[in-house]
C-alpha cells in the first residue's frame, strides 16, 4: 500500500450546509422490518452523535445490514423512522439522502477510471468538469491513490478498489457515511491498514458514520461506540471498553471476546459460589437463591497456579506474547481458558495439575446451559 494519509492533502473543501467538521446527528427510532415470517428488525432505536462512528456488530441475520440499508434508503421500514439533523428522511429517496456508502462487494463502476468513479457523485451534482477533476484528485490523494487515477477498477487490487470507493463516498461530502462490511473481502494485512485509514479519515472529516460488521475486532478497534445486535434488537450500545468489561447481557459477554462458563450456585440475589469461592454478582441474577447458574468470566478474570492435586489439568497452552493462554480441564468435559503471565507459565505444561480460582470481583451470571 502506498502512503496512507498524505500530510499535504487537505480536506476536500467541505462547504455544505453542515459546516466544517460537523457531521449530522442521526436517529433510528423504533425501526421494524419483516421479510415474510422473518423479523429482521424488531424495534431498533439508536442515536448517533455528530461526527461519531458507531458500529453495529452481530452474527449473520441479526438485522444489522437491514438497519443500514434502511438508513441508506434502499429498504423501507415497516414501522419507525430515520432522522438526520432532526428531520425524518424516511420518505426521501436514496439518491437524495446525501449519504455516502461503501459496500461489502467491490462496487466501483467498471466502465469508469478511478478518477471518474470518485467524480461520479459530483457529476450528479452538476459540478463543472474542472472542479470535479480537482476534487477527484484531492480525494484520491487523500486515500493515497493519485498514481492510480486513470486506472480502471480491474487494474486495481481489492484494497485499492475499496479505497477508491471510500474516496467516492466522501467526495460528495455526505451528511452520513455508511460502511457495509467494507473490509470483509480483503486479506488480513490490507484489512488492518484500511481500517486504520478509514478511522483516521473519518475523524479528520468529522463525518457521522454507521459501520456494519460481524468482525468484533474491527468494531472494537474502529468505533466510538459499538451496538451489539441479536434477533433484530440492540442488546447493548456502549464504548468498546465498556462492552468488553461490563457486558449487559450474557449474549454480549459471549459474543464479544472470549468468555468462560463456570458452573455456580446463587447465594441470595447478589452472591454466587463458583470454583469454591463466593463472589458478588454483577447485574440481575437469573434465578433465586440456591439456583444453578453459569458464571461468565473472561480468561484474564481467572487465576491459575501450579498445584499438585489441584482442581484441573492443563490440556494445552498458547503463547500470546506477554501472556500465555492455558486451557484447563476442570471436570468432565468442562474446560476453561485462563490467561497467565508468560514469565510465570513455564511450569504449566499439558498434563500438569493446577488450581483454578476466581478473584473476588463481581461476575456476570446467566442461566445454566
Amino acid at each position, binding site marked *: 500500500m502506498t502512503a496512507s494519509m498524505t500530510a499535504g492533502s487537505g480536506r476536500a473543501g467541505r462547504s455544505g450546509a453542515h459546516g466544517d467538521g460537523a457531521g449530522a446527528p442521526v436517529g433510528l427510532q423504533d425501526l421494524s422490518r419483516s421479510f415474510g415470517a422473518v423479523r429482521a428488525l424488531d424495534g431498533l432505536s439508536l442515536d448517533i452523535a455528530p461526527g461519531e462512528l458507531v458500529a453495529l456488530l452481530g452474527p449473520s441475520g441479526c438485522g444489522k445490514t437491514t438497519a443500514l440499508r434502511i438508513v441508506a434508503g434502499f429498504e423501507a421500514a415497516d414501522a419507525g423512522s430515520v432522522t438526520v439533523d432532526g428531520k425524518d428522511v424516511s420518505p426521501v429517496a436514496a439518491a437524495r439522502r446525501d449519504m*455516502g456508502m461503501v459496500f461489502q462487494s467491490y462496487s466501483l463502476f467498471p466502465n469508469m477510471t478511478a478518477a471518474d468513479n470518485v467524480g461520479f457523485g459530483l457529476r450528479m451534482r452538476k459540478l463543472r468538469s474542472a472542479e470535479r477533476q480537482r476534487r477527484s484528485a484531492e480525494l484520491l490523494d487523500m486515500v493515497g491513490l493519485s498514481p492510480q487515477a486513470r486506472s480502471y477498477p480491474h487494474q*486495481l*487490487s481489492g484494497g485499492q478498489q475499496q479505497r477508491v470507493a471510500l474516496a467516492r463516498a466522501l467526495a460528495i461530502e455526505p451528511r452520513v457515511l455508511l460502511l457495509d462490511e467494507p473490509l470483509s473481502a480483503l486479506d488480513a494485512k490490507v484489512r488492518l491498514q484500511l481500517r486504520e485509514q478509514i478511522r483516521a479519515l473519518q475523524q479528520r472529516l468529522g463525518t457521522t458514520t454507521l459501520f456494519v460488521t460481524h468482525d468484533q475486532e474491527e468494531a472494537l478497534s474502529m468505533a466510538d461506540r459499538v451496538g451489539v445486535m441479536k434477533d433484530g434488537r440492540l442488546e447493548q450500545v456502549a464504548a468498546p471498553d465498556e462492552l468488553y468489561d461490563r457486558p449487559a447481557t450474557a449474549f454480549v459477554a459471549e459474543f464479544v471476546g472470549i468468555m468462560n462458563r463456570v458452573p455456580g450456585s446463587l447465594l441470595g440475589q447478589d452472591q454466587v459460589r463458583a470454583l469454591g469461592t463466593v463472589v458478588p454478582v454483577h447485574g440481575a441474577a437469573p434465578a433465586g437463591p440456591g439456583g444453578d447458574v453459569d458464571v461468565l468470566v473472561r480468561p484474564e478474570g481467572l487465576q491459575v497456579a501450579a498445584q499438585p492435586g489441584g482442581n484441573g489439568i492443563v490440556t494445552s497452552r498458547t503463547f500470546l506474547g506477554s501472556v500465555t493462554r492455558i486451557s484447563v480441564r476442570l471436570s468432565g468435559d468442562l474446560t476453561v481458558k485462563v490467561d497467565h503471565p508468560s514469565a510465570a507459565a513455564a511450569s504449566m505444561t499439558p498434563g500438569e495439575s493446577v488450581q483454578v480460582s476466581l478473584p473476588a470481583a463481581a461476575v456476570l451470571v446467566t442461566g445454566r446451559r
Partner: protein
Amino acid sequence: MAAVASAGQAGPQAPAPANRPAPHGLRFPVWRWAILLAATAYFLIPLYSALKFAGLKAFPDIFRQSGFISAMGLSLRLALITTILTLLLMVPTVVYVHLRLPQIRRMMEAITILPIVIPPIVLIIGVLKVAPGFLLSTPYLLALLYVILAMPFAYRSLDAGLRAFDLKTMVEAASSLGAGAPATLWRVVLPNIRTAMLSATVLTVALVLGEFTMASLDLYQTFPVWIVNFEQNSGPVSVAASLFALFVTWILLMVIVTAGSWSSRRRGGGEVALFTVVRQDFGQTPGEPG
C-alpha cells in the same frame, strides 16, 4: 457460434499450474483433429460446391439484377428497426426483472423461448389475420414480428450480460451518489452491458437478414425472398447472391464482435460471444500489489 457461459472467478493474476500442457501442437489428440476436419468438411464442402456452381463471374451480375438493391435495402432497414425496437424493449425489461423481480426470471426464460417453439408460419398467419390495415400495408409490420423472433436470443444475451456484473450493488452505489434512474441506466448500466447489447444486436441482425417465411407470406421482397424468387431466372446468380449474403452477414457480425470486444477489453469487460458474455474479472485480486 460460441456459446460459452462462464462465471470464471480466476483473476487475471491467477498463476497457471506449473505442469499445464501447452494448448497447441502435438498434444492436440488425433480424434479431435478428426472431428474438426469432419465438421470443417461438413460446412465448407457445400460452400465450395455453391461457389463452383455459381462461378466467380456471377458475382458482379448480382448488383445488376432488378430488385436486388431494393431487397437488400429493405432487409437492412428491417434489421436496423428490429434491433432498435428489440433493445428498447428488452434492455429495460431485463434490467427491471433483474433488479426488482428476480423471482420471475425462470418464467421470463420460459416465455421468451416461445417464439422458437411456435413455428414462424403459425405466427405470421395469425398476425396477418388480426393486424390492422395500416400495418398490413407496410413492410415494417415484419419488424414488429422480427422483434418477437429475436426475443429469445436478445433476452439470453442481455440476461447473461447482467448476470456477469453486480447490477444491484452498482445501481445502489449510483443511487447513493445521487443518480436517479435515467442517469444510472445511461451512465452505469448500459456501458457495462454494452457487450451483451452487441451480442443481442449481432443475433438480431443475423436473424433478420436470413428470415424468409414471414417476409414471403407477408408478400414483401426482402433479400432472402428475392434470392428465392430470382433463382427461377438464373440459378448461378441466385447462388452467388446467397454466398454474397452469407459473406456480408459474416463481415457485419465480425465487425460488430471485433469492435465490441476491443472496446470492452480496454475496460476489463467481457468478450462478445454470440450467445452469452464470457466474463472477465473486474479485479477480484485480494491484497495490494507489490
